[in-house]
């Protein structure tokens, strides 16, 4: 017959081991709620979208066709939430509210998340749509941001996520902590990513290009006749345009024509500059 203490000696370590093996988990529920919005943009020139964490695909329409392009900001998406019970999770998902405010020509889309559920909810917007001639200022912590067809200025700040801009004729400024940047457009560009690569495809000649990237950078210029080139890279530098052909390590400075278009690039990886075929 085992003594009480010897039984305890055997049971306690086994119980500890079992509990350790099952340790480190949380039992919770998930909830979900839809969100939709349609806000008037008449008289608004700049739209700032400031959401904590959500991927966004912003599509634009041509305002010259008013029947097909209402002068408004439209979006749809959902709120995901966790809770200690199914009812709690659903209630948490219904609690956040997207808030649209405007002041003069500036409008702002934000979200109210009460302190009691912060960390328990997550936004996931689908497509947003607005007229193409509005300027955009987009901020989010986490999520890919895509902008298609904008003719205004585009500013984007993302914590973690890739950015794709097609358009941005009024200029594109992107700042990403972790993520790649890709811009196809005809405006000046000022792009920075702490961890990621950058691709630029220029559609209009004579635009400024400023890039600061940790990874590789690829730039396809619309023309190379009036360049003020100042580039530095951690990897090899390759420039193949109609006016400049060079291979370099470290740094390269060149000037062509009047030098009216500044190309200033700093990158940690390889740098490739080419010119669009047929120019």
């Amino acid at each position: 017959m085992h003594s009480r203490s010897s039984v305890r000696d055997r049971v306690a370590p086994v119980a500890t081991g079992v509990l350790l093996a099952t340790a480190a988990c949380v039992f919770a529920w998930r909830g979900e709620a839809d969100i939709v919005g349609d806000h008037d943009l008449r008289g608004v020139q700049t739209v700032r979208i400031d959401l904590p964490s959500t991927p966004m695909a912003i599509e634009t329409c041509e305002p010259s066709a008013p029947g097909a392009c209402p002068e408004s900001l439209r979006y749809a998406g959902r709120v995901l939430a966790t809770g200690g019970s199914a009812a709690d999770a659903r209630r948490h998902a219904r609690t956040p509210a997207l808030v649209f405010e405007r002041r003069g020509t500036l409008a702002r889309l934000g979200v109210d998340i009460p302190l009691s559920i912060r960390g328990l909810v997550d936004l996931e917007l689908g497509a947003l749509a607005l007229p193409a001639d509005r300027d955009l200022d987009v901020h989010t912590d986490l999520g890919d941001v895509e902008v298609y067809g904008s003719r205004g200025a585009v500013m984007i700040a993302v914590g973690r996520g890739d950015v794709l801009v097609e358009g941005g004729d009024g200029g594109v400024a992107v700042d990403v902590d972790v993520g790649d940047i890709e811009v196809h457009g005809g405006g000046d560009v000022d792009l920075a990513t702490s961890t990621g690569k950058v691709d630029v495809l220029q559609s209009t000649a004579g635009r400024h290009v400023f890039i600061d990237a940790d990874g590789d950078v690829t730039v396809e210029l619309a023309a190379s006749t009036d360049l003020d080139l100042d580039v530095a890279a951690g990897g090899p530098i390759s420039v193949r345009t109609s006016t400049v052909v060079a291979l370099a390590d470290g740094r390269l400075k060149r000037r062509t024509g009047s030098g009216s278009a500044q190309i200033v690039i700093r990158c940690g990886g390889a740098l490739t500059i080419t010119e669009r075929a047929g120019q």
Partner: protein
Amino acid sequence: MSAPWLPRLGLVGGLVIAAPPDAGAADPGEHRIPGEHRIPGEHRVPGEHRLEDATGATIATYVVRPGGATSIAVPAGEYVDVAPDGTRRVVQVGADSGFPTGATQSADDGSDRADPDAAPSGRGNAPRREPRAGVAKPPGDPSPSPRVRRPWLAAMLGAVIPGSGYAVARMPGAAVGTFAGAASLGFGAIALGLAAPRNDGTTRGDPGRSAAAEAVRHGAFIATTSALGLLWIGQAADAWRYAKGKPLRPRVDHVVGLSVQRASTVGLRPGEPAMARYDDLSVAVLGQVTPRLSVGVADMGLHTRSGGRVTLQAGVRAAGRVLERRRVWLVVAGGVIVQGTRGRPSRASVDPETPVPRERGRFGATVYAQLESRIFVLDRLSLDVGPRFSVPLSTRYYGGGAALPRWAPTLELIAGAQVYF
């Protein structure tokens, strides 16, 4: 001291031989000393004696000097005393081994350095080899203990490079093993950290990695980093102890315990990625109010996130030792964590003249029960590990913007170190 056996103490060739009142009659060849220590009276040969346990291992050496008082403290059991002339005598030592030493003599087990706390052999009635037997050094004897290997150097080097402390203590096997273990855990933790998908959850409609894979990765990260931390602390302290030649006797009579504890878990988060790691680093100060029972302030910590949310937390905890086995204690504890949280509004106003109303602060509580295994590496230092079961009564906030909902049952892995005063 007013022990009745004191008058019966006799100096026999320098070795303290004491006999309780009834000892002399029991065995004319032996003298009984307090606590039923019985040492043969013939052991009066001056010089270095060895004390062997039932397995033949030398557990102590001591020097008998004419005129000097010495004594031996050994656990209960049967020993063989080997005199300088080779004479072997069996010595029976009773249950009370706490015979106070006087002033003299050097002590060294000389044979069992790697395992001073070995468990009882289980063969016959072999004595339990407790922390090495000690024989006091004669007053004024300048000779250092042969075990002394610059203990503070061992501790400091061990704190910088795991395993190097053992090298100072002249334990090459432990040094290599510890370094290899720490390096494996370190590289493992780095690999697990880097394995985090860079863009998980950033793409709409992309479910990312499976929740199971992420949960396993987070769990493995918790396990490796906790193990690395405990190993780092433990090996430095252990190297110091070995270098100093100090036996391990956990301080059961401590007044206050000061602990730093990490409680970690893996759980659901809203959206993608579907899993998140929840870490809570906290400090506790518990006073031992009665033997085995401690009460105090625990779970003191701070959680912040860049968005301006700040959570201060503290709580009360009661902990009771339910098991004490040499260097391992099992402790059951329970308590409540109280959190106070403040945060800025989640959005700014487009009109600076009509700012968004301030967010009101919140208070919340989480109740828990935990089972700690405390493994002592020094008399006053233990490494604690075990599971905790907690239930938030309101939203429980963590650093980095994470939070757990109320009523979500949570199993956490706790790991930490505790110092006893």
